[in-house]
């Protein structure tokens, strides 16, 4: 729903970058005296100079090409590419690294403008590599490097942002941030914090979103930029409305509304969205003022035609919910139907559109259609859950790869330094150092891998929790009602509804067992055992344990519980599927320093030569927590699998 913001931000970011490039060029040109002739020249005069009898040479020619490329960029990309290529070729001859990275980055931006993101990324990364080479040469100052790096990081982040690769986008924005902070570029910082906030918001991590929006607000207040302040206000308003935090939303709403109302012609894209937020603010439980909400919603709807689809959809959803609150079902239906995206992607926004339609059709008594939309919503949720999770993990992998490469570069750099020592130090000392160094690298790498895995797990946990709650509480209740109503009207639909219900509950539980969140591991494992045939659960407390439920205390306790629960799930599944077990027992033994989960069966036992996928998954899960697996088997009688995690 929030893609249009990206465009908006991109535009702002592009403007900021352009200004910076101009300033940068100004500084460069001042230092080169020969360049003075061309300093204020436009494209025409530059071209004339190129064709004159005394054309610029060397560095000046390079700069001329560079400036011509940028001059042509907005209106004639053919010419821009032509001059870009010339500049690139010349930069190789003259070793003009700074211009080279600049040209490469602009090529990237051109592809970005044409929405060829893969190509764009290739050029940006190439530019980044050139900057790395610049870092090894003394003639470039740290400022040169920082300028170039921050621009490229921002550009890469924008690409990932538009491709919905949120983790990666955030990673690159955060790389650019310290540079902006170093030079105290407030505007750029504001834009970045705002973008990061928006990304977290889209990912459903409202806490981090709030934090970043607040930083954006602080920075924009410091710089006194009213547009950026309004952007930050808009983000916060949206967030508080989503959180149902009336107090804070109410506080921020007037400031936000004031700005956008005053600038409604320039901000034609965002103004209706702010109106929708205002409408929602007035629909909040406990502070309902539907007539005011109606006013905002109608104004938003009348402006909606000129918007991109995501924002339209959000506005119509608001209108539909308002109509529902007033029990005007037909009106709600006409609005809700307009929220559906013609080429539906699986997003949580799509799912909530389907939920609205299902509710309205239930209320209108059209059970077939309600049923249809509920199953559509279920499909979307499942698809979204898997896609989202998969893409999250693959992004983590990319990040991890990048870090590995960085480590390699560091390693190479220090190896080079070591050669210097070679001349002065004795061989024996060097061997000793080498060993120590390798150990250090190995330890560092392992630490990074563990950290990446932990981060991935935590992100996964948060997303799953939100999804599970939506599925279980929202959709589950609706389905139950539909079932009760259908009982009398059309019993033929009952089996379908029941199977949707079972499947839904299974998915929600698999995403995040609610009992685990509320009452912890022991209770959740007990429930799990009860829900299965011939399965028992025992909680054993060893001597010296003073508090029986010590797991939750301290940071990470919840994560450990989740890991153990998932291990139990996996192991019990394995036992049922592969070991042909009749009885399964789950045990949790708590000792002062560690906790051990045991899943045992009386099946045929393990063939220890082959380790299935299940056990490998478990090893990966417990690795970040320094856990270990121990398998004790009595042939033909049964197997105990013990998983121990230190506390």
């Amino acid at each position, binding site marked *: 729903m929030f893609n249009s913001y990206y465009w908006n931000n991109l535009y702002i970011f592009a403007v900021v970058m352009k200004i910076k490039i101009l300033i940068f060029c100004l500084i460069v040109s001042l230092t080169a005296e020969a360049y003075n002739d061309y300093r204020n020249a436009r494209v025409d005069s530059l071209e004339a100079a190129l064709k004159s009898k005394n054309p610029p040479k060397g560095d000046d020619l390079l700069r001329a090409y560079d400036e011509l490329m940028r001059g042509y960029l907005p209106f004639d990309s053919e010419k821009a590419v032509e001059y870009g290529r010339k500049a690139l070729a010349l930069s190789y001859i003259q070793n003009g690294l700074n211009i080279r990275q600049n040209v490469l980055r602009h090529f990237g931006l051109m592809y970005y403008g044409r929405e060829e993101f893969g190509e764009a990324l290739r050029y940006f990364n190439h530019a980044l590599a050139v900057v790395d080479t610049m870092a090894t040469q003394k003639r470039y100052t740290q400022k040169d490097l920082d300028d170039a790096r921050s621009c490229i990081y921002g550009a890469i982040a924008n690409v990932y942002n538009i491709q919905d690769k949120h983790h990666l986008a955030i990673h690159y924005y955060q790389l650019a941030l310290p540079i902006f902070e170093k030079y105290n570029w407030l505007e750029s910082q504001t834009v970045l914090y705002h973008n990061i906030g928006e990304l977290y918001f889209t990912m459903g991590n409202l806490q981090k979103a709030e934090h970043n929006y607040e930083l954006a607000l602080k920075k924009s207040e410091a710089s006194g930029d009213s547009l950026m302040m309004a952007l930050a206000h808009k983000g916060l308003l949206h967030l508080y409305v989503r959180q149902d935090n009336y107090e804070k939303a109410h506080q921020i709403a007037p400031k936000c509304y004031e700005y956008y109302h005053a600038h409604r012609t320039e901000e034609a894209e965002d103004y209706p969205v702010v109106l929708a937020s205002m409408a929602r603010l007035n629909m909040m439980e406990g502070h309902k003022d539907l007539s005011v909400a109606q006013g905002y919603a109608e104004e938003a709807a009348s402006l909606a035609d000129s918007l991109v689809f995501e924002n339209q959809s959000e506005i119509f959803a608001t209108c539909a919910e308002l109509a529902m609150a007033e029990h005007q079902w037909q009106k709600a239906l006409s609005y809700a139907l307009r929220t559906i995206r013609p080429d539906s992607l699986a997003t949580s926004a799509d799912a909530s559109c389907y939920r609205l339609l299902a509710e309205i059709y239930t209320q209108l008594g059209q059970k077939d259609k309600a049923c249809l939309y509920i199953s559509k919503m279920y499909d979307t949720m499942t698809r979204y859950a898997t896609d989202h999770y998969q893409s999250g993990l693959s992004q983590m992998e990319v990040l991890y790869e990048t870090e590995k490469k960085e480590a390699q570069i560091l390693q190479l750099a220090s190896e080079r330094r070591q050669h210097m020592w070679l001349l002065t130090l004795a061989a024996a000392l060097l061997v000793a150092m080498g060993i120590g160094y390798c150990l250090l690298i190995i330890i560092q790498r392992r630490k990074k891998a563990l950290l990446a895995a932990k981060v991935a797990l935590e992100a996964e946990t948060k997303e799953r929790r939100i999804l599970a709650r939506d599925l279980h509480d929202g959709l*589950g209740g609706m389905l*139950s009602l539909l079932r009760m109503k259908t009982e009398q009207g059309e019993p033929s639909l009952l089996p379908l509804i029941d199977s949707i219900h079972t499947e839904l509950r299974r998915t929600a539980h698999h995403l995040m067992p609610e009992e685990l969140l509320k009452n912890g591991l022991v209770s959740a494992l007990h429930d799990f055992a009860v829900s299965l045939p011939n399965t028992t659960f025992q909680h054993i407390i060893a001597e010296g344990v003073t508090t029986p439920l010590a797991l939750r205390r301290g940071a990470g306790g919840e994560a450990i519980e989740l890991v153990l629960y998932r291990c139990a799930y996996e192991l019990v599944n394995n036992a049922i599927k592969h070991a042909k077990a009749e009885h399964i027992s789950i045990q949790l033994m708590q000792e002062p320093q560690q906790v051990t989960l045991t899943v045992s069966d009386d099946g045929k036992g393990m063939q220890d030569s082959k380790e299935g996928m299940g056990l490998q998954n478990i090893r990966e899960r417990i690795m970040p927590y320094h856990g270990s697996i121990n398998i004790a088997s009595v042939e033909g009688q049964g197997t105990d699998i013990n998983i121990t995690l230190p506390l």
Partner: protein
Amino acid sequence: MKKYIIDVYIVDDHQLVCEGISDLINQSGQAHVSYTFTTLEACRLALQNRRPDVLLLDISMPDGDGITFCRQIVNDYPKVKVIAITIHDEYSMIQRMMDCGAHGYVLKSSSSEELLEAINSVWQGKEYVSRQVTDILEKGKANSVTLTEVEKNILRLICDGHTNPEIAKELNLSTETVNWYRKRLLAKFDVKNTVGLVRTVFEQKLL
């Protein structure tokens, strides 16, 4: 004689669910829903003025926990019968709700007949849990001190007087593992040492 119609309140955070269940109950003619609430707070306020015969209560509510709320209602208004109507079919949830004094427990997936039966039964002073719920409760309460096959083998060898290294060799395990299992057996039977363990095994005829 005019038939008595049972007065019912419903608390569920989904307005639609409230209305749907109301329709079903009202159509039956045996009971009538006089109020529905989408928050616990609203219900709490209303109860101060007027109390129903039966209160249908959803457990997961946005402004609080249905379980705590149930305990307060049962304490403050002993005449009001509370039926949990929920999606949760986990043992711990059912157990906690019944411990807090709920008179009935019905799953949202059960049929409308079952819901009406529940309302009738609790109004007559009986406890009602749907069939599915009864099964879950029975299974959850069953005593579950069991020994795994590996534990049985180790216990047998301990009772025969073998040392940890001997047991380890016999069962193809490491000495450490055997030592850990010994500790777990002590904890399981809540005894201080191996002597106590052996005595318990013989007293309870476990092997």
